[in-house]
């Protein structure tokens, strides 16, 4: 069952076509990350899926409801934490959460309980009665996300949730996101940090210039570009020599007893390599595969084809 589907989404601002036909599916209970540089169209995508703006063409549904025809049903099922903090700075953390509880019509007792639980869960108890304008960046994001959770949404949109946060606050945010997934919530995350997508996402789509240029798990994406290799470790120089004669294109890895063999890391090519070594009875101490990291993938995929 898909929590989010989008088909052929297009959207322009004036003459500027920001989305040029985007298709995607997000399975329920997973983290989907839309990865892209600034200006790739990530926020526009979130705005369409969260009913803030309409697509020019194409269709999308979230939690089983069409975003254009039934926006209120979508709104009732989602939570959005945008790039800019959406807290009321003149109110305290507790009052902000209470406001959300009231707007979700939770009732006095249930609302109060929920507010206290969220303050606890997001480590905001000490700051609960301080004005949100005095909060640090990390606290503000936590409050923002806590406000999003008051209504127990099925699908949460996180638009660049850690942009501008220090490394510690970023890790804390990641931890929170992981706990949400454990509760069965579907998360649509946009980010420009590959590391973040790698850490959190089940599936990643790379958005570049209004189009999805690649989609898959982090590992699938990494395998899509060349440059991966297998490192064979030996415990005897003679074994190393033997292997070097058997395997083509291998290169010595410096002074170490290791051989570096170009390989895309797929099971079949690994098996072929091992069979080859086995056939010549070359004992290998250990083996490790090295795929390029997401930075390599991202740069390779979003490289500008033409330069003016």
């Amino acid at each position, binding site marked *: 069952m898909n929590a989010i589907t989008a088909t052929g989404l297009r959207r322009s601002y004036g003459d500027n076509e920001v989305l040029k036909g985007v298709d995607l599916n997000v399975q329920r209970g997973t983290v989907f990350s839309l990865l892209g540089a600034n200006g790739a169209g990530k926020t526009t995508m979130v705005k369409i899926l969260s009913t803030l703006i309409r697509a020019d063409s194409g269709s999308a549904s979230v939690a089983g409801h069409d975003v254009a025809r039934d926006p209120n049903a979508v709104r009732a099922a989602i939570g959005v934490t945008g790039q800019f903090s959406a*807290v*009321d700075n*003149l*109110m305290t953390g507790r009052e902000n959460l209470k406001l959300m509880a009231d707007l979700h019509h939770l009732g006095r007792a249930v609302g109060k309980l929920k507010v206290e639980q969220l303050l606890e869960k997001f480590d905001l108890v000490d700051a609960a009665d301080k004005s949100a304008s005095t909060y640090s960046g990390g606290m503000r994001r936590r409050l923002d996300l806590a406000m999003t959770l008051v209504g127990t949404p099925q699908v949460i949109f996180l638009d660049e949730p850690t942009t501008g946060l220090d490394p510690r606050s970023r890790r804390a945010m990641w931890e929170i996101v992981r706990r949400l997934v454990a509760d069965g919530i579907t998360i649509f995350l946009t980010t420009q940090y590959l590391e973040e997508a790698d850490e959190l996402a089940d599936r990643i789509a790379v958005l570049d210039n209004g189009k999805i240029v690649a989609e898959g798990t982090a590992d699938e994406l990494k395998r899509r570009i060349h440059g991966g290799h297998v490192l064979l470790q030996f415990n005897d120089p003679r074994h190393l020599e033997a292997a070097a004669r058997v395997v083509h294109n291998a290169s010595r890895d410096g002074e170490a007893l290791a051989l570096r063999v170009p390989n895309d890391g797929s099971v079949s090519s690994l098996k072929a390599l091992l069979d080859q070594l086995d056939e010549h009875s070359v004992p290998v101490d250990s083996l490790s595969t090295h795929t390029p990291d997401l930075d390599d993938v991202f740069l390779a995929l979003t490289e500008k084809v033409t330069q003016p």
Partner: protein
Amino acid sequence: MTYVLTDSATMVRRNLKRMIRYPSMTFQLLIMPVVFLLLFVYVFGGTLGAGIGGPTGGRAEYLNYVTPTIILMAITAAVQGTSISIAMDMTEGIVDRFRTMAIARVSVLTGHVIGSLVQTVLAMTFVFGVAVAIGFRPQANFVEWLALAGLLIAMAFALIWFSAALGLASKTVEGSSNIGLPLILLPFFGNGFVPTDSMPAALRWFAEYQPFTPFIDALRGLLMGTPIGNSGYIAFGWCVVIGVGGYLWSKKLFNRESTR
């Protein structure tokens, strides 16, 4: 949408809380009409009163003449706060949060409008209190007081919706704080401070037909217990036109796409 009232009440609470947290703005809006009152009564009042008052003319006469105008200015000053607070809200992320929630959308606006109405009524009461303190003695009977309260609240409500639209239309908070200036000046180009028949022809024509003139006429008559002719109806008609226009314009502006 069964939650319009509940959601609006929630938003009104939010806005009243914000006003309490940010008292300097309320103070600023309150101080302007009081300064005008004191300025016009004590600095200009002697001379202007002699000009309008005939045999009994003077400062006391001018106080009676100008107090209704100053009460109107309490409204026009307070509604600037509506523009500013709405523009402030729109530049912050929280309105986009509201837009993605399954709430009665109009409650975001009604929260501001009702909140401003409370603020405006307090401002009018305060200005009226100052006028009484310096010697203003209204002659209205019970029915006239009711009519007065109805007319003032109608005008406040209308101008608040109009200012809400101005606040939504302005791109920046700074812009919204200037946009209300014509409203503050409008009573000068009418019968607010001097009778219109002392003005040159073109200006007099404008002064006699602009919305604040019948409104001030009606206020003066009701406060002093003198006949008001049809000015009350004309003033109320203006309230309806400004209010409905402001409401529709606000709604249209709020429902257009978020452009941030």
